[in-house]
């Protein structure tokens, strides 16, 4: 653990209840830049809720979230989730979300969408005959480069919804990368992915770290998590049980007990 690395994301004493249920009961965590931090825990421990708090899908009852030392707790409210993306926090979804009707190539052209693409003046410019969209070639080029990076050039004209989950998730990562965020929040990136595609995804995620990106992910499959993470947080009943390196976690008795007394690590 490199103590000099900057803390890019910090949560202090997050709390969230749904009615009578305390989903998150005072969680604090720190994420360092250019690391892979994983949050694991048994079912019902509150991983998804914690994730939703960080990604802005739900707002905490109390506690604070800091991004690059800036208090973003207020911004983490449902309707403003697009501003988080603008700040540099992007997320992927457990059930691969995407623009299924589009071809893979085109789905990689959606982001980033600058304010200028969105504006009414750009619309009126289209009225002038002969104006080609200046940025279209740039955008298409970047998308094609991403396709190559992902190894999907042959499938560029295929629809996203016709792909297997692994490919869809790979494309999702590519989409997010083109957005240019600093933090990637990944919600069970390996869920539903076939065995042969898992290494592809893991390699890509590791590659992101090499490029200075920060990854925070929740995942169920223990072995991959232990293999690629720098820091692991174990969440049980809404509280952080322990934080440590994969080696420390692997040997921690409390973690083993938390997973219902299964001896050894559950591989999947």
């Amino acid at each position, binding site marked *: 653990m490199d103590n000099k690395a900057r803390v890019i994301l910090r949560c202090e004493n997050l709390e969230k209840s749904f009615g009578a249920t305390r989903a998150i009961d005072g969680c604090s965590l720190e994420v360092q830049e250019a690391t892979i931090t994983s949050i694991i825990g048994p079912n019902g421990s509150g991983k998804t809720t914690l994730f939703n708090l960080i990604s802005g899908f739900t707002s905490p009852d109390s506690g604070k979230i800091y991004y690059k030392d800036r208090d973003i707790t207020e911004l983490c409210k449902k309707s403003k989730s697009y501003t988080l*993306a603008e700040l540099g926090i992007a997320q992927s979804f457990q059930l691969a*979300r*995407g*623009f299924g009707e*589009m071809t893979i190539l*085109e789905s990689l052209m959606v982001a980033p*969408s600058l304010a200028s693409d*969105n504006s009414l003046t*750009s619309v009126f410019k289209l009225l002038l005959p002969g104006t080609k969209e200046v940025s279209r070639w740039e955008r298409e080029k970047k998308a094609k480069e991403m396709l190559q990076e992902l190894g999907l050039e042959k499938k560029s004209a295929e629809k996203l919804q016709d792909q297997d989950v692994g490919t869809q998730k790979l494309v999702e990562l590519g989409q*997010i990368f083109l957005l240019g965020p600093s933090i990637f929040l990944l919600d069970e990136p390996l869920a539903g992915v076939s065995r042969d595609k898992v290494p592809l995804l893991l390699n890509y995620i590791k590659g992101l770290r090499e490029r200075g990106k920060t990854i925070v992910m929740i995942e169920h499959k223990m072995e991959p998590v232990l293999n690629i993470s720098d820091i692991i947080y174990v969440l049980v009943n809404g509280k952080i049980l322990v934080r440590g390196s994969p080696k420390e976690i692997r040997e921690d008795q409390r973690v083993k007990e938390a997973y219902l007394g299964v001896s050894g690590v559950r591989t999947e």
Partner: protein
Amino acid sequence: MTVAFIAFCLSFISLFLIYVILVLALNLQWGQAGILNFGLVGFVALGAYTTAICMLDPSTLAHVDVGFGLPFPVAFVIAIIVTGIIAWLVSAIVRLGLEELAIISLAFAEFLHVTISNEEWLTGGTVGIYISSLLDEKLDLLGYNVAFTVILLVAALLVYYFTTKLNFSQFGRIANAIRQDEIKAKSLGIDTVSHRMKIFVIGSMIMAAAGSLYIYFGLRAVPELYPVGLTFAIWIALILGGTGNNLGAVLGMGIYMLLDMLARLYLNIPGHPEIAAGLKFVIIGLLLVILIIRRPEGILGPKRSRYG
């Protein structure tokens, strides 16, 4: 082939072209962006009546108090801008959901209809507004119709060109993305509410333009020209021809008008005029149901972007 017959054919084509502009606007809102707009006829009426009020010389009509006597081009621009502003206000509801917008747009059209029928001082009430135009004064029957068919053809081609270009641009791509998965679009930094509002406004302004041209052509604004049935007729044409496909939309409109004409000619049972009118709507309703269930993409299917 008498002159009157040719003039009649041309006026039919002119009407068709106006409907084409409307269906293209609806395709932008629904086919591309997935926004339900049931207030179509309201925006058309808004464009038409604003144009009429702007062009009217109030001294020529006793029952209307307001008029500005402006030339058509100025009235046209004012009508589009006014409609844009009102569409902006109506579309703000989209923040709360698409179903809500659908209902509010329907309510808006109904409310507008009531207002138009009642506020005689402004809109001439049920009698309406009659305006005069230079073209009408200078040209004979045939010339008039030819002029308008040309004007409307140019307008329709412009709208076709514009909406296609819009659909294929990044602006259209964003709209398409929002339609498919709003949450995902937000996670990629897109302000989905604002974008949807913009599309709604642009579409409504095109509808107002059609209304404006229509009234310049017909020179008469009466509430009964803008019934709720018009909204649903355009919807059916769009669904029939291909949601999300401009060419399909035009095709659908053509087929719809053909069916309408056939119904008028052949569904007449002597002595019972209401059966023809009623049957027409029954068939429209059945078509809508069958299409939604069996082939919601319409005859041509969607073509929302250059990439397929």
